[in-house]
C-alpha cells in the first residue's frame, strides 16, 4: 500500500533549509562571479567574464595555489593510502593488539583541525619544537629545519600533518575491505605455492580494490577541503607557499574584499573538483574491473 500524499510533508522542513541555505548560495556564487562586488556596498556592476579572464591570464597567486593544492593532494593521497593499506594489512585480524592499535591510530581523527594545527605548530617550531630539539640532541643539526617557515618545504610539512590526521580513518576502510576477503582464497594460494607478493597481487589487491577506490576518492576530496588545518597553521603563508584554493578564496573575499572575484575563484574550484572526481572514477573503475 502506498504512503499517501502526507509523505510529502516529511520533506518540507529539511528541504526548505537546504534550498535557502545551500542551493541558493551555491547558485548565487555563479551569479556573483560575473560582478565586481566588494561585499560591503549594496551596489555592484556586471563585468562579464573579466574575473575569469584575470584569473587565467594575470593571477600568479591563483596559479600558485592551484599548484600547491595539487602537490598537497598528491603527497597526501600517495602517503595516506600507502600507510593506511600497509597498516591495515598488518592489523586485519581482530586480535586484542590489532583492535588497540587501530583505535590508537584512529585517535587524531576526532580532534579539531585547530587542535591538530596547534600540536604540529609546536612540533615544527624551529627553536622550541620537539622535532628540532631531538634533531639537535642526536647531532643532526642540518636536519633541524624551519619546517613551516621555509617556503620550499612548508606545503610538504603540512601534508605530513594531514596524513597523520587521517591515516587511521582510511585504515578502517581498508580493514573492512580486507576482512571481507574469504579465507579459503588464501588457503588455495598457499596450496598452489604462491609467495607473499604473489598472494597480495593475485588475491588481496583485486579484492581490496573497491576499498582503495573509496580511500583514494575520499582522500582527494579531503585534501582539497583542508581549509581549517592550513588556515590555523599558516593562513596560507609564508609568501603564499601553503595557499590552497580553499584558503585563497577565503582570503580574497574576507581580506581583500573582492567578493565577485572570489566567487569566480570558487566556481573554478568547483569545476576542478568535479573534473578530478570524474577522471578518478573512470580510472579507478577501469582498474578495478
Amino acid at each position, binding site marked *: 500500500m502506498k504512503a499517501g500524499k502526507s509523505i510529502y510533508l516529511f520533506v518540507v522542513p529539511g528541504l526548505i533549509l*537546504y534550498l535557502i541555505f545551500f542551493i541558493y548560495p551555491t547558485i548565487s556564487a555563479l551569479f556573483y562571479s560575473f560582478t565586481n562586488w566588494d*561585499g560591503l556596498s549594496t551596489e555592484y556592476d556586471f563585468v562579464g567574464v573579466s574575473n575569469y579572464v584575470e584569473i587565467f591570464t594575470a593571477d600568479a597567486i591563483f596559479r600558485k595555489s592551484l599548484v600547491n593544492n595539487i602537490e598537497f593532494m598528491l603527497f597526501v593521497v600517495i602517503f595516506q593510502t600507502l600507510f593506511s593499506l600497509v597498516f591495515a594489512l598488518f592489523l586485519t585480524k581482530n586480535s586484542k593488539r590489532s583492535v588497540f592499535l587501530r583505535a590508537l591510530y584512529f585517535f587524531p581523527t576526532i580532534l579539531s583541525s585547530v587542535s591538530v594545527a596547534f600540536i604540529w605548530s609546536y612540533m615544527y617550531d624551529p627553536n622550541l619544537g620537539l622535532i628540532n630539539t631531538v634533531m639537535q640532541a642526536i647531532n643532526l643539526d642540518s636536519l633541524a629545519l624551519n619546517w613551516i617557515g621555509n617556503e620550499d618545504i612548508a606545503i610538504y610539512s603540512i601534508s605530513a600533518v594531514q596524513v597523520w590526521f587521517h591515516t587511521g580513518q582510511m585504515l578502517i576502510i581498508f580493514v573492512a575491505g580486507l576482512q571481507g576477503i574469504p579465507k579459503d582464497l588464501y588457503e588455495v594460494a598457499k596450496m598452489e605455492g604462491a609467495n607473499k607478493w604473489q598472494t597480495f597481487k593475485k588475491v588481496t589487491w583485486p579484492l581490496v580494490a573497491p576499498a582503495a577506490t573509496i580511500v583514494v576518492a575520499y582522500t582527494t576530496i579531503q585534501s582539497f577541503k583542508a*581549509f581549517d588545518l592550513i588556515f*590555523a597553521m599558516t593562513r596560507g603563508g609564508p609568501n603564499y607557499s601553503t595557499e590552497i584554493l580553499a584558503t585563497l578564496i577565503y582570503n580574497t573575499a574576507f581580506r581583500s574584499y573582492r567578493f565577485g572575484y572570489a566567487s569566480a575563484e570558487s566556481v573554478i574550484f568547483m569545476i576542478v573538483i568535479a573534473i578530478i*572526481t570524474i577522471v578518478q572514477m573512470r580510472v579507478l573503475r577501469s582498474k578495478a574491473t
Partner: protein
Amino acid sequence: MDRLGKRVLLIIYAAIIIIPMLTVFFSTFKTTSQMYENPIGLPESFNFSNYVQIFNETAMATYFKNSVIVTLVSVTFTLFFASLIAYAITRMNKWMGGLLFGLFTLGMMVPAQVNMIPLYSLIYRLDLTNTLSGLMIVNISVTLPVAVFILTGFMKTIPKELFEACTIDGANNWQVYRRIALPLSLPSLSATAIFLFVMHWNDLLYPLLFITKDEYKTLPLALLEFQGQYMTNFPMLFTGVMIASAPMIIAYVFLQRYFIAGMTAGSVKG
C-alpha cells in the same frame, strides 16, 4: 625478520601518534620554561594552575557552553530532518524519491568554500551574524546532504513490506516513521549522530565567518584567537586544546567502536 620489521613499523607509528599527544597533555601541567627544558617528560606535579588561569583570562566557560549548545541543537535537528527525508524517499514513488535523493547527495560534492561567500551575505542580510541560531541553521543545512545519504542508504535495506503492512493496519505516516522506521534505523542514526557530533564540535569555518563577538564564539574559533593572545606560550595553548577536546576524548574512550563506525560511515557508500 619479516615479523620483526612489521612490529617495528607498528611501534614507530604508534610513537608518532602517542608522543605529540603526551607532550600536549603533560605540558598543560608545566610552565613554559619547564616545557622547553623537558618537553616529553612527566610534569613535576599535576597542578591545574594553567587550567585555572585560562578560565580566568578568557571566557572559556562561555565558549564551552556555546559549543555545547550549537552542537547539540545542530545534531538533533539535522538527524530529525534528515531521517524524515530519508523515510519519505524510501516511501515515495521511485521517480520523486530518486530526484530528492539526487538533489541532496549533489550537495556532498560542493565544498563549503564554494557557497560561503553568498551564504555570508545571506546571513548578514537576515541579521543572523553574531547569533548562535544563525550558526545552527547553517550547520543543519550544510550537513543535511551527508546525513540524508547515510540514512537513506540504511532505510532502503528495511523491507518495504514492513511499512506497507503497518499502513494497511491503519497507521498513518507519522506513526510508521515513529514506531517502525526510526527504531529500526537506530544503528545508522547513532553512527550519523557521532559523525555529526565530531563535525559540528570541531568546525571552524562557519564561526569564523559569522561570529565576531566574544560572547558567541565557539571553542575552535576561540582557540584560534588564543594564538594571538598566547603566541608561543604552548602550555597555555595546549591547555585550551585539552579543554576543547576533552568531551570528544572522553566519549571516544567509552564509545570507540561507535566512533570508528560513525566516522567512516560518511565516507563509505551505503
